[in-house]
C-alpha cells in the first residue's frame, strides 16, 4: 500500500516537466526551465513515447553502470578463460573466428581448466586459501567478540567514542597497516627486540614470511569488519533476559552461552562473511607478510597475470575462485537484505 503513494502521478509529472507551478529562482524552477530547452524536450518526449518514466530512468542510471562495469566484465573473464594464450596484443586467442565462406567458428577449449586440475600448485593454492581464510575468520571472531562485548556493555557516553576508535583504523590505508607489521615482525624487528630485552627469548623468532604472519595480518586488517556487526547486534540485546536467567539461578558463564551467543548469531555470521570472503582472495597480506611457501590463490592469480602474462589461465583461476565464493556471497546478500528490511 505504500507503493501506490510513491508511484508518481503522470499528470503531475508532465506539469513538472513543463515547468508549471515551479517558483522562479528555486532550484527546481531552474531545473524545470532547463527541461524546456529544445534538446531536453525532445529527449524527454522520446523517452516518454518509449514508455520510460522518471522512475525507470532513475533506476536505469546505476543499473546500467553496474551491468556494464560489474557484471559484463565477468562474462568477458569467462570468455577469455576458454581461450588460449598467444604472443600477441591482446595475448589470447579470439573466441569467434571468421573462416572462409562467411561462417563463424567458435574456438573454445577447456584446456585451462584441465591444466588447473593437473597442476597441483593450483588446487593446493585453493585449499591453502580456504584453510587460511577459515582459521583467520575464527581467530578474528575470538578476538573481536570480547572487544564488541566490552563496547556494547560500556557506559552509554563512551560508546560513540569507542565506535569511532574501531572505525578509524578502517579508514586508514590497508596497505599502510600491513606494512606497519613488517617493521614489527621481521627478524631484527621491534617484537624480537622487545622479547630479547625482556629476556623471554635468546634467539630471534622467525615470524615474518611465515603463515603466522599472514594470520596476524588478516586478523589485524579485518578486525573492524568483525567488531562492527557484532557490536550493532550486542548493543540491541535485551539485558533483562540475562537478569531473568540470573534470578532463576543460571550462572553468568552459562547464561552467556545459552542467551548471549545465540542472540548474537546474526552478527557473528555477518562478521564472518565480511572477513572470510575477501580473505579468501587476499593478495597484499600473503605477498608482503607471507613467505615463498605461503600459497594463496590471490597471489597465484597475480603472478600468473603479471609475471607469466598468461591471461587465459588467470581468468580460469578467477572463474573457479568465483564459483567457490558464489554461495557465501549470495548468503551474504540475503542477510544484508534481511537486516536492511528489519531496520526499516
Amino acid at each position, binding site marked *: 500500500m505504500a507503493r501506490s503513494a510513491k508511484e508518481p502521478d503522470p499528470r503531475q509529472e508532465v506539469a513538472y516537466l513543463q515547468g508549471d507551478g515551479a517558483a522562479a529562482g528555486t532550484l527546481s524552477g531552474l531545473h524545470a526551465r532547463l527541461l524546456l530547452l529544445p534538446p531536453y524536450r525532445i529527449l524527454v518526449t522520446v523517452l516518454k513515447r518509449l514508455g520510460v518514466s522518471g522512475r525507470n530512468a532513475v533506476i536505469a542510471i*546505476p543499473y546500467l553502470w553496474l*551491468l556494464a562495469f560489474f557484471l559484463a566484465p565477468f562474462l568477458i573473464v569467462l570468455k577469455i578463460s576458454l581461450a588460449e594464450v598467444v604472443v600477441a596484443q591482446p595475448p589470447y586467442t579470439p573466441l569467434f573466428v571468421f573462416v572462409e565462406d562467411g561462417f563463424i567458428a567458435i574456438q573454445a577449449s577447456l584446456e585451462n581448466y584441465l591444466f588447473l586440475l593437473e597442476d597441483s600448485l593450483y588446487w593446493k593454492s585453493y585449499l591453502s586459501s580456504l584453510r587460511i581464510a577459515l582459521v583467520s575468520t575464527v581467530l578474528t571472531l575470538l578476538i573481536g567478540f570480547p572487544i564488541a562485548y*566490552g563496547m556494547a556493555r560500556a557506559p552509554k557516553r563512551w560508546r560513540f567514542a569507542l565506535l569511532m*576508535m574501531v572505525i578509524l583504523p578502517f*579508514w586508514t590505508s590497508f596497505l599502510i597497516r600491513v606494512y606497519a607489521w613488517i617493521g614489527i615482525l621481521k627478524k631484527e624487528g621491534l617484537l624480537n627486540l622487545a622479547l630479547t630485552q625482556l629476556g623471554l627469548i635468546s634467539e630471534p623468532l622467525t615470524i615474518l614470511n611465515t603463515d603466522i604472519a599472514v594470520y596476524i595480518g588478516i586478523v589485524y586488517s579485518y578486525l573492524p569488519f568483525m567488531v562492527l556487526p557484532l557490536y550493532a547486534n550486542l548493543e540491541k540485546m535485551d539485558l533483562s533476559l540475562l537478569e531473568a536467567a540470573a534470578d532463576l539461578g543460571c550462572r553468568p558463564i552459562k547464561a552467556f552461552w545459552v542467551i548471549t551467543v545465540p542472540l548474537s548469531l546474526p552478527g557473528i555470521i555477518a562478521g564472518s562473511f565480511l572477513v572470510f570472503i575477501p580473505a579468501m582472495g587476499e593478495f597484499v597480506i600473503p605477498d608482503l607478510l607471507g613467505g615463498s611457501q605461503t600459497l594463496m590463490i590471490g597471489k597465484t592469480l597475480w603472478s600468473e597475470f603479471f609475471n607469466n602474462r598468461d591471461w587465459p589461465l588467470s581468468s580460469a583461476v578467477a572463474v573457479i575462485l568465483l564459483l567457490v565464493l558464489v554461495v557465501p556471497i549470495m548468503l*551474504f546478500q540475503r542477510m544484508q537484505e534481511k537486516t*536492511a528490511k528489519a531496520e526499516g
Partner: protein
Amino acid sequence: MKQGASWFNIASLVVGFLFLYLPIALLVIYSFNESRLVTVWAGFSTKWYGEMWNNEGLMNSAWVTLKVAVVASTFATFLGTLAGLIMARFGGFRGRTLFSGMIYAPLVMPEVITGLSLLLMFVAISLDRGFVTVTIAHITFSMCYVAVVVQSRLVSFDRSIEEAAMDLGCPPGRTFLQITLPVIAPAVVAGWLLSFTLSLDDLVIASFTTGPGATTLPMKIYSQVRLGVTPEINAVCTILVGLVAAGVLVASLVTRRQELRREMEERAAQAAP
C-alpha cells in the same frame, strides 16, 4: 561477580585497542627516527619528510591518486545515492534481486577478481588504460559502499514526511531535492569520504586497471615496500594517516552537530502552536 565481568570487559577493550593502534603508532614514531635502521632509535629528526617532499616520483603519484580519488568519489556518490534510494524506496521492480546482488557483491568480492575482470573488459573494448580506467574502476566499487550507507540512513528515516509532501502535490523529483536530500545529507557526505579513502587506499584494482603515466601512490608505496622498510615510506604513511584521521574527526563532529541542530529545530517546530 559483576565486578569481575566488567574488569574483563575493560581488559579486553584495552588489549583490543592496543592491538589496533600500536602498529600504527610505532610506524608514526619511527618516521621521526634519524637512523635508517628500523629498530635503532638515533634521535628525533624530520629529515625523511624533506626527502619525501623531494622525491619527484612519489609526489607525482600522490597527485595522480588525489585526482582519481576526487573524481571517482564524486561520481560514486552520485550513483551510489541513487542506488541507495532505489534500494530503500522503490519497492519491487523487475530485476531487483540482480540489482541488490550487484550492490552487495562488490563489498566482499576479492579485489583480484574485480581488478582482472575490469582490465579484461577495458582491453576488450580497447579503451586505453590510464587515468580514465582507474577512475571507472574506483567508481564501480565505491558506489556500492555509498549505496549501503545511504540505504541504511533512508530506512531509519520516517518516510511519512516524504509522503505528506507528495500528497500535497509536490512532484517526486522536488520532494527528493527539498526533503529527502537534506535529511540524508550526512550519509551522502560520509559516503563521499568513504569512497575517497577507499580510492586513496586501493592497490590491487589500480594495479590491474592502470596504464603507463597513471601510477598511483599505493602502487608506488608497494613497489618500495617490497625492497624493504624505509623511514621515507613511514613519513608518507604518517602524513596519509594524519590526513585521514583529521578528515574523519572533522566529518564526525560536523555531522553530530548538524544532527543536534536538526533535533533542536524539530523539537522547536513541534512546540510551536
